[in-house]
C-alpha cells in the first residue's frame, strides 16, 4: 500500500519541480484533483482540471479547484493558442482514443506539455507477457483484462519515436527505475518503470 501511495506522489514531486510558480496549468484527466491541489498549494498556480466523472469533479470543487466535466479535446478547442503555460497529461495517455490528436491540441493551447506514463517496455512487463503469456499486471495495473478499461500500452521507445515523427521537441525527460524513485540512466526502455516528458512544439 505504501508503495502505491509513493508511486502516486511521484508526479507531484517531479512535476512540482518543473512547474513555474504562479503559472496557468491545465490537467487533462485530473481525477480528484490531488496533483492540481498540490501545485496550487506549493506553486500558487492558476489551476484548471478536466475530467469526465461527476463524483471526481465534485471532489475537485471541494478542493476549490476550477474543473470542467467533459471531453478534453472539446475543452481545449475552446481556448486560444498558448492560453495555458503548462498542460499536464499524467497517466492518461494510454487510455486516450486519439493520443496524437490530444497531444497536438495540448501543444497548441499550452506552451509546454507534460506527459507521464508507465513504461510498458520495462523488463518486468516484458517478462510478464513473455513468460506468463498474460496481460501485464503490476502495482499500477492491478486488474485482469476483463475488468480493465481499454488501454493502449505505450513504451518509452514508442513515445520518443512519436515525438520525432511529429517534430515535437523534448525539452526535459525523467526516467525512473522500477521503484519509480531513483533515476534510470541506462537503457531506459528496458529498465525504467515510469517516464515523464516535457514537450514543446
Amino acid at each position, binding site marked *: 500500500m505504501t508503495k502505491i501511495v509513493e508511486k502516486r506522489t511521484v508526479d507531484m514531486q517531479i512535476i512540482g519541480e518543473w512547474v513555474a510558480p*504562479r503559472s*496557468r496549468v491545465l490537467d487533462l484527466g485530473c481525477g480528484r484533483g490531488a496533483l492540481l491541489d498540490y501545485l496550487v498549494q506549493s506553486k*500558487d498556480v*492558476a489551476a*484548471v482540471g478536466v475530467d469526465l466523472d*461527476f*463524483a471526481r*469533479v*465534485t*471532489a*475537485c*470543487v*471541494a*478542493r*476549490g*479547484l*476550477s*474543473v*470542467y*466535466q*467533459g471531453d478534453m479535446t472539446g*475543452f481545449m478547442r*475552446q*481556448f*486560444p493558442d*498558448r*492560453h495555458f503555460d503548462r498542460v499536464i497529461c499524467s497517466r492518461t495517455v494510454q487510455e486516450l482514443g486519439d493520443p496524437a490528436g490530444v497531444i497536438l491540441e495540448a501543444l497548441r493551447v499550452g506552451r509546454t506539455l507534460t506527459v507521464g506514463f508507465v513504461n510498458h517496455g520495462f523488463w518486468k512487463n516484458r517478462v510478464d507477457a513473455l513468460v506468463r503469456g498474460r496481460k501485464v499486471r503490476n502495482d499500477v495495473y492491478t486488474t485482469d483484462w476483463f475488468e480493465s478499461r481499454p488501454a493502449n500500452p505505450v513504451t518509452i521507445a514508442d513515445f520518443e519515436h512519436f515525438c520525432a515523427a511529429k517534430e515535437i521537441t523534448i525539452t526535459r525527460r525523467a526516467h525512473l527505475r522500477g521503484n519509480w524513485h531513483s533515476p534510470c540512466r541506462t537503457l531506459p526502455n528496458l529498465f525504467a518503470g515510469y517516464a515523464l516528458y516535457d514537450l514543446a512544439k
Partner: protein
Amino acid sequence: MTDSEENAPVGSPFAAGEVGVVTPRDFVCPRPFTFKSGQVLPGFTLRYETYGELSATRDNAILICHALSGDHHCAGVHSADDRKPGWWNNLIGPGKAVDTRRFFVVCANVLGGCVGSSGPSSLNPETGQAYGISFPFVTMLDMVRAQKLLLDHLGVTTLHGVIGGSMGGMQAMLFAIEFPGYTRRVLAMATTARESAQAIAFNEVGRQAIMQDPDWNQGNYGKGAGPRVGLAIARMMAHITYVSDASMDRKFGRRKKTTANGESYTFDVQFEVEGYLRHQGQAFINRFDANSYLYITRALDQFDLAHAYGSLESAFAPVQAESLIVGFTSDWLFPPEQNRQIALAMLRAGKRASYAELATDLGHDSFLLESEELYALIRAFLERSHIVAVDFSI
C-alpha cells in the same frame, strides 16, 4: 433537539432539518427606481423571505433567485397546516445542502412579478388602477438591481453566494458581473448566457396565447379576471418544455383516464397527460398574472450577455466570484452545451469557474431534483472557505 422536533414525523415540514413556518415580508423602497429602459417608478416593493440568521460579520448571506414562474417562497411552510412547502425546500434548511444553520438565505419575488412585488398587477398611485402594460419594461438587470437594494436594506455586506436555476441562473451571473466585489460565489444551473431562438419561440407562443385571448384586453383587466384561457394554454405549453420525453412517458405513458363509456371518440380528456396539463394550466391561472407572464418572458428573451457587454469574455471580465455552472443532460430548453459555454467563457476570461454535468432524464426542471449527488456538489461549493481570486489573464 427540542421535544417538539423529536416528536415530529419524519418527512413533515416540522421535522428536524426543516425551516418550518415562515412569514413573507415586504421591502418597500421609497426612492425612485429607474429601469434600464429609462422608465421610472416612484418606488417599488419586493416581497421576500429569509431563513437562518445573518452573522455578526454580515457576510453569510445566500441569495436564491427564482425562475419564471417561481416566487420568494422557496423553503418552509406558511402555516402549521400548510401542506405545500416552498419550491426549493429539498435544498434549503438546517443541515441541508444550503444549510440555514450556517447561512442567512434570502429569496425575493422579482420586480415585475405578481406574488407581492411591484409588477403590472400593482396599483398605479396616479390612476388608482393596475398598471397593466403601462408598467415599465423589466429586464434581468432591473430584477438584480432591485434585489441588491433589498440586500443592502437587510444589512448584507457581502454575498457568500447567489444561487439560481434557469432564469435564476441568469440573475446569479448578473450579480457577479454587476456587483463583483460583493458576490463571492455564483451557482448557476440549467441556464444560459443568451436566450436561444427556440426558447424565445416558446415564449412567443405563450405570449400569443395570452394576447389573442379577448379577455386580455390590451392588458386592462380587473383583479381575478383576465385572459384565463390564454394564460392556461401558455402554462400548459411551457410546462412541456420543463420536462422530457422520457420523464413524461414514465409518469403518464399512454394511460387513459377511466371514462364511463370506456372507449371514446370525443375530444374530452382521454389521456392522463392531458388531464395533468389541464390541471397545471388551471392551477397556474389562480396564482399568476398574465401581464407578469408577458413581462418576465420578455425579460428572458432580451437576456444576452455577449450582446450586452460586447462579448461573453468581456461580460465576465469584472467577475471576482468563484463560479459553478451545472448542466443537466436531458435539459432541452437550456441544454448542457449552453451551460458549458458559460463556464468556458469564464475560464477564457481567466476566472475561477467549474462546470459539472448531471445525467438525469427529467429535463429542464432537473435542477429541482432530489439528488444526493447534486447536494454533495452544492455543499462542496458553498462550504469551502473563500480564496481570493487571482487573475492570470494574459
